[in-house]
C-alpha cells in the first residue's frame, strides 16, 4: 500500500497536515475558510448597521447633534493610522511571499504598533466621552448619561443617548476585533521571528492579513457614518 500513499500525500513540508493531499489544497482550504468567516463577520456587524440606519433616518437631528460632539480630528487621525497599518500588513504578506524574512518581521511589528496606536487614540476618545457624561445608560455605574448639550427644539436627549449607544456598540465591537487582530499578529510575529514562514508556506500570514484588512474596512465605514453627520452644513447641523 505504500506507493498508493506516495501519489496523494507530499510528505515534504512539515507544515502540511495529515488530512490534506498537498500544500495547495491546504492553502486553498485556509483561504476559503477565512473568507467564509469574514462573511459571518459582515452579518454580525450588519445587525448594528441596520439599527444605525433605522434610527438615523428616524431621528436625523438628534443624530447630527450627537455626532458633532465626537472628536473628528482624533477620528481622522485614527482612520489614517488604520489605513497605514493595512499597508504594512500587505507588505508583511508580500515580504513573506518573496522570501524577505527580515522585512516580514519588521512589517508585522509595525502593524502591531499601528494597531496599538489606534487603540490608544480610541481610549483617549472614550475617556473624553466619560468626562463629558456621554456614556449611555448605566454602562459605567455612577456616571449616568448626563451631558451638557444645547438641544434644538424637538430633539430628545433620549435619542442623543441612543446615538451614543450605537456609537459605543459599533466602535466597541470594532475595538474587540482590533484586540483579537493584535493578538493574532503577535502570534505570527513570534513564529516569523523563528523563521516558520517561507514562500512555500505563507498562508497563515496571508489569511491573517485578510482578517486585518477586514477590520480596517469596517472602520472605513464607521468613520463617515458616525463622525461626519451633517458636516456639510457647516459643522453644526443642530
Amino acid at each position, binding site marked *: 500500500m505504500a506507493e498508493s500513499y506516495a501519489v496523494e500525500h507530499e510528505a515534504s513540508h512539515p507544515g502540511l497536515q495529515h488530512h490534506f493531499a498537498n500544500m495547495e489544497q491546504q492553502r486553498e482550504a485556509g483561504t476559503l475558510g477565512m473568507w467564509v468567516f469574514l462573511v459571518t463577520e459582515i452579518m454580525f456587524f450588519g445587525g448594528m448597521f441596520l439599527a444605525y440606519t433605522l434610527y438615523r433616518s428616524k431621528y436625523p437631528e438628534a443624530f447630527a447633534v450627537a455626532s458633532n460632539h465626537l472628536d473628528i480630528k482624533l477620528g481622522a487621525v485614527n482612520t489614517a493610522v488604520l489605513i497605514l497599518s493595512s499597508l504594512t500588513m500587505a507588505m508583511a504578506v508580500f515580504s513573506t511571499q518573496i522570501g524577505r524574512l527580515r522585512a516580514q518581521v519588521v512589517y508585522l511589528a509595525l502593524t502591531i504598533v499601528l494597531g496599538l496606536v489606534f487603540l490608544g487614540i480610541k481610549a483617549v476618545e472614550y475617556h473624553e466621552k466619560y468626562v463629558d457624561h456621554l456614556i449611555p*445608560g448605566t454602562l459605567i455605574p455612577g456616571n449616568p448619561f448626563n451631558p451638557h448639550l444645547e438641544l434644538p427644539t424637538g430633539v430628545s436627549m433620549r435619542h442623543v443617548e*441612543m446615538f451614543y*449607544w450605537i456609537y459605543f456598540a459599533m466602535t466597541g465591537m470594532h475595538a474587540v476585533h482590533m484586540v483579537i487582530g493584535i493578538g493574532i499578529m503577535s502570534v505570527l510575529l513570534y513564529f516569523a521571528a523563528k523563521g516558520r514562514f517561507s514562500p512555500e508556506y505563507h498562508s497563515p500570514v496571508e489569511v491573517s492579513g485578510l482578517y486585518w484588512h477586514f477590520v480596517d474596512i469596517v472602520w472605513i465605514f464607521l468613520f463617515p457614518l458616525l463622525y461626519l453627520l451633517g458636516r456639510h452644513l457647516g459643522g453644526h447641523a443642530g
Partner: protein
Amino acid sequence: METFVPPVPSRINYLNAQYGLKSWLLTKDHKRIALLYLGSISVFFLIGGLYAMFIRLELLTPQADLLQSTTYNKVFTQHGIIMVFFFLIPSIPATLGNFLIPMMIGAKDLAFPRINLLSWYIYMLGGIVTIYALLAGGVDTGWTFYTPFSTTFSNSYVVATGLGIFINGFSSILTGLNFIVTIHTMRAPGMTWFRLPLFIWSHYATSLIMILGTPVIAITILLLAFERLAHIGIFDPAVGGDPILFQHLFWFYSHPAVYIMVLPGMGVISELIANFSRKNIFGYSFVAFSSLAIAVFGFLVWGHHLFVAGQSLYAGMIFSFLSFAVAIPSAIKVFNWTATLYKASISYDTPMLYALGFIGLFTIGGMTGLFVAALATDVHLSDTYFVVAHFHYIMVGGTLLAYLGGLHYWWPKISGRMYPEGWGRFAALIIFVGFHLTFMPQFILGYMGMPRRYHVYPPEFQVLHVLSTAGASILGVGLLIPLVYLIWSMRYGKIAEGNPWHLPGLEWRTQSPPPTENFEYTPIVTWEAYEFAPPEEMQVVGKFRNEVVERS
C-alpha cells in the same frame, strides 16, 4: 495501468485505534467528534423531553394543578430553548453530517479538525451556561425573547440564558464554515459536484444558513443583554427604540433556523428513499438545487412571524407571497421522492419506515404552513395551538424522524453493529402513531381558539388535550425504545459488514467501523451518485469493497 487491490480486512478502526478519556476529549477525528455530539445532544433531548412531559401533564386538566403560571411559563420556555438551540439545530449536522460528510466525499477528515473539536467545546460551554441559568431560576420569556418583556419586565435569568445561546451560536457558525470549506476543497478525485450525494447538497445549503444567519442572532442577543443590564437600547420604546426591530432581527435568524433544522433531514430522506428503493433519485439536480432554493428563499420570509405585530400591510403581503414561494422547492422534493418510489424495489427496513413517515408528516406540516402564511387565516390562527401543531409536524415529524431514520441507517457504519430490525420497526410504528395522536388534536384545538402558552383553558377543550397527552406518552415510550436497543446493540448487536445494505455510496465502500483516516487510500470516483451495480456484483462485496485505483 489499472490494478485491483484485494480487500484487506483490518481490525483497527476509529473506535479501537486509541483508548482512554483523553483520546476522546482531545480527538481531532470527525467521527469521534460526531459521537461526542451524539452523546451530548441526546442528554439535551432528554432534558427537553422532560419539560415537554410537564407541559402535557399540566394540560391534562383545565385548571392549574400541577404547575402555577410562572412555573408553566418557565417550563415551556425552557422546553423550546433546549430543543431548538441544543437539540434540533445541531442534531443532524453535528452528528450525522460530521460523521458522514468527509466519508461521502472521500476525504480523510473535515478541512479544520481542530475547529471541529473547538465547536463541540463551545457547544458544551453554551449548554452548561444555559443549564446553569435554568437551575438558578429559569427563564420565562418564551424561546423568542420578545422585547420589552425580556429587557424590562421579566424577573428571570434572561441574560444568563442569552449568554448560553450566544456562545452556542459560535459552534453552529464554525460547523457551517467547516462544512462549506470541506465540500469545496476536500472532494476526492472524480467526485464532481453533480456526483455528490444529496445529503451533501442539503448540508451545503444548511451551512450557508448557519454562517449567514447565526451571526445576526448573536449580535441581537448581545444587544438585548446590554439593554437589560445597562437600561439603554434600541429595542425599548421607553428610550425611543422599537420592539419590532427586535422581532425583525430575531426572525431574520430564527426563521432560516427552521431550515437549518429541516434541510439536513431532507438530505437524510433523499439518501434513504434512493437507497432503499435501489434506484437513482428522480430528478437529481432538481432535488439538489431545491435545497439551495430553500436556503435562499428562507432568508426572505421572516416577516410572516410579524403579520399581527404591527408590520405594514404591504410588507405583510410581500412576506406572505414569498412564504408561499418556499413551498415550491419543498414540494419539488416531496414529488421527486414520491416519483423515485414508483416501480422501485422498495425494502421496508426501519430507516425506510422513518423516511416514508417523514414524507407524510412533512407534507402535513408544510401544507398547514401555508394556512399560517396566508394573511387572513393567520389573524385567526396566530399564537394558537394550530401554530404549535404546525411547527411540531416539521420539527418533530420532520427533523426528528429523519434523524432517527439516518441514525438507524448509518448505525452499522458508526458502531460496527446492526440494530435489532424487529424492535426497530416496532419503535418506528409506535413513534408514528404517538406523534399523530399528540399533534393532530392540537390542530383542531388551535382552530377552535386554544391559545398557545396558556395552561388554563375552557373545559370543552379537555377531550382533545387528553388525547394529545395520551399521544405524547406513547411518543415518549416510542422514543425510549431506540435509546435502549441502540445502546444494547453496541455490545450485543450482530457484527456489521462494511456494506450491509449493498449500496454504492462511498461511505459504504470502507470497513465498518471505518479506520481513522476513513479509507485505506484516497478513492477515485468513477461512478455517478446512486449508481446501482447489477445485484450479482453487489453480492460479491466482501468485508469491504475496494475500488479499482489508477496508479502512475
